[in-house]
């Protein structure tokens, strides 16, 4: 949620419902509208990715599928399978 405050009083409220996801490897950035707080499991589902095939990291910290992410979070999503 983003409050717009002018001279001490709230003049506007925006609900920013997006998380920013950077895919690793590749570096593609995707924004996902999650609405509110959702589990990592749910986030991956919305990205069309499997829970076991990816690892989600926020600010250098590894999250489990049961952890939650919130609008405004910046995440890195690592693909587990690497080639070569």
């Amino acid at each position: 949620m983003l409050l717009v405050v002018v001279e001490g009083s709230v003049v506007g409220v925006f609900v920013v419902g997006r998380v920013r996801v950077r895919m690793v490897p590749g570096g593609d950035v995707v924004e996902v509208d999650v609405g509110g707080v959702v589990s990592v499991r749910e986030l991956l589902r919305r990205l069309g990715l499997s829970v076991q095939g990816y690892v989600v990291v926020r600010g250098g910290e590894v999250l489990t599928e049961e952890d939650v992410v919130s609008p405004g979070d910046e995440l890195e999503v690592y693909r587990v399978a690497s080639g070569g």
Partner: protein
Amino acid sequence: MHQGVKCSICGEKAVAIIRYARLRLCKRHFLEFVERKVERAIRRYGLVGRGDRVVVAVSGGKDSSTLASILAKLSGKLGYKLYLLYIDLGIPVYSKANREKVVELSKTIGKPLIVVDVKEVLGLTVPELAFKVRRPVCSVCGVVKRYIMNAVAVELKASALAMGHNLDDLVAYVLKEFFNQNLEQISKLGPRTGSVEGLAVGRIRPLYEVYERESLLYVLLSRTPFLPDECPHVRRGTMEFKIKELLDSLEESFPGIKFGLMRRLAKNLESYPKPSQKLSRCKACGLIASGELCSFCKITKQALGEPMGARVREYIRRKILELGLD
């Protein structure tokens, strides 16, 4: 709002949920869990002994970084010496970036690093070599890497060459070879392969029981230097990738099924047919071959007019002396 799940052992915040083992682990206990698996595999399959020299080929990727880091940790306790090897293939951007990463890795874990620069010794990078002999880069790359890894291990008088293959890689190879009914190839996919005195150093796979996801989590959680970038020559959509996807959905329904297969395979390896190919000594370089010349000497002779194996061995001996590792 819940705070996430807690560690099954200590109650701290969990960072990994291990379904097949019914465990939820915090960072500390997860790292220990993976390290124990590697130690157990080393003991169970007799991969290294006290006083051994072990070479680990590092690429800068997650698996070899996990492997090098854990082997470094266990080296004191198990009494072996560890050497890192990086082969600079000369793949634009990719090889340099990974080279810097393994230099950092070597410093972080405190083990010596030998760098073999293919362009420096052959005058050609691997893609250039592949172009000259009109073969796919990945197949030439495989020949060059296998040759250099073995040559370094031989020159260092190492008893084992440690490979970073994880459990998921190995299950996919086994299945691919099964579909092709190359049962002799499956016999080589165990936790270790034998040495051939003076010609070839045996390979060990200490990550035999470590899932690919666990390997990625390990480097992330332990902050071991690695690069997630993929080689630009890697091709998706190959049979191996499709098999991996298939196996992932099987593992999703039956957690632990991959682990079970590899455990049973390790017990059954003896009953698989062995490759019947006769082994010989390369006439040009003296290392293992299946005919007159080894594959590396054949390719370099074709590209440069002269087999380069002996030259590479000399280059490696010089590097070993320079680094004071002899």
